[in-house]
């Protein structure tokens, strides 16, 4: 199995599809960038799908080719960790719409041999999941022992369980929601307007010249605030000044928090495409799982045999516990099997990406308890 060309690090495949999108359009071919860790067993029942967040990627447990940073979820994936490549076959796929190898606005449209730009179709969370399902068919994987994701990854996990209940044995949804709130749509719109206000954005046709990095950096700065918490910011930065003893009476980054945010913005543009940011935030904004099920969330989980585990963090105001509870209520109302816990952490929405021993214990216990 290990010799299978389809499995391993930094894989790319072009699939014929077509992928039928929620918008009604058909999309083909589908480029899929993904990685696998561990070995698929002979029963093919040890596969775990990792779903990444808005600006995440397939490099969950390996070094990012652009930043050189180690995998974004090494706290959870690895030997001796809850998701262990010695036991599990782990699949991590770059979502469509993104810019790390899967089809997105920056990839080349085979019909024009130019980047799609804004000709790329508007996609949804459900579309991302259907693309992943097509890739899993190609990989020869019918059922997943578990699908797991935080934030937008949690939305994909919910969509997986709703669209393909027979393929998902267990689902772990962390710091997420079954719908994007008005407040979160609002923050996304600020980011998008920031990108579009950058003259270099050029209605998305910037791939021959300079990218709208100023707009994208500001979008990232605004978004980054929502991933943290006031307590976390106060602990980490307070009102401390950056490399100076006095206020400058100017508009330099006087405060450490300003300097930190500017750094976050500037480093983000090296690894992310502005148009991808537009498309993926749009996909999140359009997400309301109940929409496809007659407006009643519980109907999304009707007759489900999937085991669910929902985790929230008390300082996460972007995807607060109330949204997780809403998921839990719906699964309970459908008679489904669900566990839920709100964990304590001062680090806001980003808590799920940071070392969180309690979260690890829960993921581990939940996965091990699978029948």
């Amino acid at each position, binding site marked *: 199995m290990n010799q299978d060309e389809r499995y391993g690090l930094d894989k790319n495949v072009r699939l014929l599809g077509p992928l039928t999108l929620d918008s009604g359009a058909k999309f083909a071919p589908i480029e899929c960038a993904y990685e696998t860790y561990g070995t698929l067993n002979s029963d093919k029942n040890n596969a775990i799908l990792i779903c990444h967040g808005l600006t995440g990627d397939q490099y969950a447990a390996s070094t990012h080719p652009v930043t050189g940073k180690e995998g974004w979820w090494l706290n959870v994936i690895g030997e001796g960790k809850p998701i262990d490549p010695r036991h599990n076959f782990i699949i991590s796929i770059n979502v469509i719409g993104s810019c790390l190898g899967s089809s997105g606005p920056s990839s080349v449209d085979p019909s024009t041999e130019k980047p799609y730009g804004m000709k790329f179709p508007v996609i949804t969370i459900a579309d991302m999941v259907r693309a992943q399902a097509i890739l899993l068919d190609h990989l020869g994987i019918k059922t997943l022992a578990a699908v797991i994701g935080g934030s937008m990854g949690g939305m994909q996990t919910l969509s997986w369980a709703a669209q393909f209940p027979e393929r998902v044995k267990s689902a772990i949804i962390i710091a997420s929601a079954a719908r994007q709130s008005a407040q979160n749509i609002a923050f996304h719109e600020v980011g998008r307007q920031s990108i579009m206000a950058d003259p270099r954005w050029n209605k998305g046709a910037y791939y021959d010249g300079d990218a709208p990095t100023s707009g994208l950096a500001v979008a990232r700065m605004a978004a980054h605030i929502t991933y943290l918490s006031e307590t976390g910011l106060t602990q980490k930065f307070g009102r401390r000044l950056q490399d100076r003893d006095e206020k400058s009476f100017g508009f330099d980054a006087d405060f450490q928090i300003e300097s930190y945010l500017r750094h976050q913005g500037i480093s983000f543009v090296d690894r992310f495409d502005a148009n991808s940011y537009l498309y993926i935030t749009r996909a999140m904004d359009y997400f309301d799982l109940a929409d496809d099920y007659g407006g009643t969330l519980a109907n999304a989980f009707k007759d489900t045999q999937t*085991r669910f*585990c929902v985790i929230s963090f008390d300082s996460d105001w972007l995807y607060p516990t109330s949204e997780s*509870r809403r998921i*839990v*209520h719906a699964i*309970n*109302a459908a*008679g489904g*099997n*669900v*566990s*839920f*816990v*709100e*964990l*304590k952490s001062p680090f806001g929405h980003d808590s799920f990406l940071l070392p969180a021993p*309690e979260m690890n*214990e*829960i993921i*581990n*216990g*939940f996965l*091990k*308890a699978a029948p």
Partner: protein
Amino acid sequence: MNKSDYKLRPDLAIIANNIEQDSRVLDVGCGDGALMAALRDQKNTDARGIEIDPANVSAAVSRGLSVVQGDADTDLSEYPDKSFDYAILSQTLQTTHRPDRVIDNLLRIGRYAFVSFPNFAHWQVRLSLSFGGRMPVTRLIPEKWYDTPNIHHVTIDDFRAIVRERQWIQENQWFLSGDKQTSKAGANILAEHAVFLLRKD
């Protein structure tokens, strides 16, 4: 796990012994899941839990149990009618804001409901209040008046009265003194602890 490995609290042991094999059970206020784990392994039940304390929830989920962090007073309404064979409320009744509504919900969700609670009319409690003149602090009611989670103390006779008033059907009753079962006679004075099995129809 071997059957003898479970050292359940006496009221939980009574409940465990009286639950049918292969049934569906909702344990409201399940703590760290001791009863659920025993039921799963000994009776092959499909057990679900609700627990208010996050540390307990984490412990229960980490041992592979299906537990939701929630509150008996507010979160039972989401469960469909008759979705469980048994709904269990062990030593939690006296901590709820509206015990009557909680039991109503248990009887709606489960075909049967087990309710266990410490008896506030036990002679030690009576002595402590009558002669000591202070709010009783006993083995089963160990907290002081100001930090106790027990906000609705109840006696066995109080409970019997509400069962009659609401026309709930009492299927069975058990009484405990120390860790030993004790008789129905004089239970309101002699029993430290009571377990009732109820149904609605």
